[in-house]
């Protein structure tokens, strides 16, 4: 008995280890016991109170990661919003163009402006339509706002148009209200002016300027701009400054009007002005 006691004493460490291992294994094999679940619930409840206090400490690393994720989301959403805004504007533009196309009785070719120059004295725009689309030289270019210019050069798929802000383009115009005629031109610097208007003509600021029926290049009645300033050019004529209705800076979609010079009229007028010698 004494020997047994001595033996137990000698191996007490291993006995305790064995007991603890047995307990551990017993717990392992009885994981779904009601008692264990109860014990677990009590312990989790007690620690939960302490942990809830600790959890209020902000997790810097998680916040960093969350910030990064939110920034990425922000960029993605900003891009989407930007795209949607662009689509909305395009939709408005195209709807307006479509309704304009339907309302006008003239044949129109829809075109996109693929290039433009606005800082020279002879400004032009390049359109993505050409002879394949039945676009020819001298056809007027318009938008729903009014006259843009005229085609001066064409290729199979592209064309170039002189715009109102071009020194070489002169248009016979009319004051819509008082029916006074004049000639519109670009001064090469900043403004459109109408000349050849008698000093006593009835023109006031705000009057709308339209194309005249005297013009052989453009159909009559196309709006061009509004009078912003009137003054005297000399003793006989007025000088009128006109702001175009078309915003050339934001010009993106235009229509080419299938309207060509009346050859019979053109040649008649030309032969009368310069008779053969």
């Amino acid at each position: 008995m004494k020997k047994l006691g001595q033996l137990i004493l000698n191996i007490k460490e291993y006995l305790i280890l064995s007991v603890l291992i047995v307990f551990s294994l017993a717990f392992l094999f009885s994981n779904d016991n009601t008692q264990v679940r109860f014990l677990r619930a009590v312990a989790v409840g007690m620690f939960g109170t302490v942990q809830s206090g600790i959890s209020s400490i902000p997790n810097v690393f998680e916040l960093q990661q969350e910030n990064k994720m939110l920034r990425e989301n922000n960029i993605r959403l900003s891009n989407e919003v930007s795209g949607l805004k662009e689509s909305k504007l395009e939709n408005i533009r195209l709807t307006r163009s479509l309704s304009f196309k339907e309302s006008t009785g003239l044949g129109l070719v829809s075109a996109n402006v693929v290039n433009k120059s606005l800082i020279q004295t002879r400004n032009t725009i390049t359109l993505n339509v050409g002879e394949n689309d039945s676009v020819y030289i001298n056809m007027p270019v318009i938008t729903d706002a009014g006259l843009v210019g005229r085609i001066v050069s064409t290729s199979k798929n592209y064309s170039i148009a002189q715009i109102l802000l071009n020194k070489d383009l002169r248009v016979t115009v009319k004051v819509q209200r008082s029916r006074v005629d004049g000639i519109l031109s670009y001064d090469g610097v900043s403004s459109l002016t109408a000349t050849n208007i008698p000093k006593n003509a009835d023109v006031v600021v705000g009057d709308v300027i339209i194309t005249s029926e005297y013009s052989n290049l453009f159909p009559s009645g196309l709006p061009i701009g509004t009078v912003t300033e009137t003054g005297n050019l000399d003793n006989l004529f007025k000088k009128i400054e006109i702001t175009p209705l078309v915003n050339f800076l934001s010009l993106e979609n235009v229509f080419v009007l299938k309207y060509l010079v009346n050859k019979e009229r053109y040649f008649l007028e030309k032969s009368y002005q310069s008779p053969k010698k």
Partner: protein
Amino acid sequence: MNIDYKSIIRNAILLFVLILVQKSLVWFISLSQLNLSPDLVIIALIYIGVREGKISGAVYGFVAGLLLDVLSGSFLGLLALSYTVSAFIAGFFQTENDRFLVRFNFIIAVFAISILSNFIYFGLFFQGTPILFAKVMLLYIFPSSTYTTIISLVYTILPKKKGYDRSYLSES
């Protein structure tokens, strides 16, 4: 038989605090990208085992492991088993001059016992799953033990009691 109540209370507080930290604040030093977190409790258990012997180590290991099992909601008894055996083995590093409580010897002890602890824990945890043991070794046991060992380096910079016998350092 003398019972050192002071030591029991000190160890209990140390383990309780570390369990709390392990359960609540370990994400501060976790490598979430690699799914790695250090085992702070095993470091303390190894310290207790090396300092106070096999029985103390095994008992504290069992209690701490069981408490963590209860709190983790995982397999009850798994950490208890792992910690009991590991802290018991740590008792083998107990020497009269506490040579394994000094600096790099302790680090070696932590690495070796941490491997054993993770081996028991993950070995049983992944039983019955199709994951190969080699993969468990490479993905869990070895990285986790290494990271725990790295964290235990903090122990080497903590101030030590003057009473530790470091005479073995001047041996040979």
